[in-house]
């Protein structure tokens, strides 16, 4: 009975997602084919000879009506065909498959750092509401909302790489360590550890840690702020008073009972923050010369490689929708009231 009800809810959710996905495709189609003054030029670049131009025009189906063009685009995307990149002369799908793990690696470590530090910080701030520690958490968070990620990255490189020499510089791996490890997951640190190449893993981690900390700071700013506000809500509830009257230790009341309930809305926040880090990676990857999806998109953009830009945009959009759906489903599973 209950499961059936979850089933319908999930079904409705999936239908909504399908409509959103269609809209997403409509937007990328619109940007790629309608906004540019000459979509053919945008696809082949400025220096293409005349016969290539004519051939691509027919290949793109630009002689047909718009709705037919959109239909062709839809069919292609569902076949996993995002077109060819002018810059790398690979298919965009293959390119994205190659670069995406690097971004996942960065954003995942960033989110882990943000949650591991941000949640306790938010709890402590809520418990000590109005005291100095609350103000510190608040200002650290507000600063995270105000600092440009690319600038913070540059300053981080200056301080921790150049001046203190605690971490490795831009890029993903030192030159001496390249091509030792065969990719399994595409995430270098994980792959190196799986293959037992500890030296490589160390070097890769030295490259990863600084950009991950930068992204982690932005995640921390958001997560700590939301944790604080959810905790304040929970600490007002009657069950907290009951638990105290029962004689439970304050630590147990706060960290077990109140935080336990605050986790439910926090799931959504963490999913959103993960999605935001994928976006933040566009600028971070540029600063750190990190060969991920963000750098792929910006590089293609600066070379007017529209297929690659739109393919990358679409993938990020899909991940966004996917994470939203996932957090909705988790929410339903964790919170009995939402079933």
């Amino acid at each position, binding site marked *: 009975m209950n499961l059936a009800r979850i089933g319908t809810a999930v079904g409705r959710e999936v239908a909504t997602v399908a409509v959103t996905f269609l*809209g997403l495709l409509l937007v990328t189609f619109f940007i790629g084919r309608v906004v540019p003054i000459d979509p053919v030029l945008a696809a082949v670049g400025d220096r293409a000879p005349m016969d290539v131009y004519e051939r691509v025009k027919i290949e793109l189906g630009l002689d047909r009506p718009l709705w037919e063009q959109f239909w062709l685009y839809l069919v292609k995307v569902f076949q996993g065909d995002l077109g060819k990149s002018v810059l790398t002369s690979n298919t965009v799908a293959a390119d994205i498959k190659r670069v995406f793990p690097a971004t996942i690696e960065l954003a995942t470590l960033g989110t882990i750092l943000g949650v591991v530090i941000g949640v306790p910080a938010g709890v402590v701030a809520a418990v000590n509401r109005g005291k100095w520690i609350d103000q510190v958490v608040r200002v650290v968070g507000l600063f995270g909302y105000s*600092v440009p990620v690319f600038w913070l990255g540059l300053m981080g490189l200056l301080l921790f790489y150049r001046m203190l020499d605690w971490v490795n510089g831009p890029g993903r791996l030192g030159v001496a360590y390249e091509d030792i490890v065969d990719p399994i997951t595409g995430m270098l640190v994980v792959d190196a550890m799986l293959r037992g190449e500890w030296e490589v893993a160390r070097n890769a981690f030295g490259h990863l840690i600084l950009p991950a900390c930068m992204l982690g700071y932005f995640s921390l700013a958001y997560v700590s702020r939301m944790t604080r506000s959810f905790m304040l809500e929970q600490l007002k509830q009657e069950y907290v008073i009951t638990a105290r009257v029962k004689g439970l230790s304050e630590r147990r009341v706060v960290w077990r009972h109140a935080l336990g309930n605050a986790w439910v809305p926090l799931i959504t926040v963490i999913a959103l923050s993960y999605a935001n880090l994928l976006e933040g990676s566009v600028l971070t990857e540029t600063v750190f010369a990190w060969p991920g999806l963000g750098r792929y998109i910006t590089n293609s953009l600066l070379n007017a490689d529209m297929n690659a830009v739109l393919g990358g*945009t679409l993938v990020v959009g899909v991940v966004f929708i996917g994470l939203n759906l996932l957090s909705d489903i988790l929410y339903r599973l964790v919170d009995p009231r939402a079933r």
Partner: protein
Amino acid sequence: MTASTLRAWLLSDAPRSRLQARAGQAYLRWISFKTNPLALVGLAIVVVLLLMAAFAPLIATHDPLAQSLDHRLRPPSATNWFGTDALGRDIFSRVVHGTRITLVVVLFVVVTVGPLGLLIGATAGYAGGWVDTVLMRVTDIFLAFPRLILALAFVAALKPGIENAVIAIALTAWPPYARVARAEAMVIRNADYIAAVRLQGASATRIVLLHVMPLCTPSLIVRTTLDMAGIILTAAGLGFLGLGAQPPLPEWGAMIATGREQIFDQWWVATAPGIAICVVALGFNLLGDGLRDVLDPKQSQ
């Protein structure tokens, strides 16, 4: 009128005119706003920003565009307070003139996005039914995109430049405003006075434009102030990637991009504009937080 009679007039329990009532309410809000020191800091930063933009030529010590290759990459000194960049331009003067670009971008985005989001949201919330469903679905689609990446794709299709950066940011910034306005409108549409206006024969257009939209405005003002920092950061990000303001305009993000090559040896080139962005964004965030406490107590903790 002396200060004390003015105060009495403002705080009067029985205002004689609409003006007096409004002024009194604003004064009360100011009193509660004043008690929040962080909000006052934010206000001060924003005021300084406005003054700097207005009097930029008077404050700047050099011409922001004047190159002087004999003086390139000089560290901060008495003549060049923030040092000089790779073309020998004075960084302090460029940061000061950059306030104008930042303000223009923010202003244009807000002027387009506020009313657009307000109109879409108020219409959806007031009309309900399929109009609501369609408008909100479109909003959700735009919300599903990460903002910066969507703006990037738009600028890529439109060709880089400050005008296109403004258009791109505006196109990606309206959905949250529509959401806020819709939530307000859904509450307002059931109010008695809306029913009264409807009974007097007002058209739906008239009700939305004259009676629903004005009441959604306070929460939108709060939302806008809190959003300013995000707009500034997005514009700076586009500038950093070379897609926003084009050289030689002294846009802060673009200035950081030019300082990137010299970051290890001439750190000051990228440092000053970055601090400027931080300070301004922090100012808007603090001001927005303070305004929310005063204008929109429901939303604040």
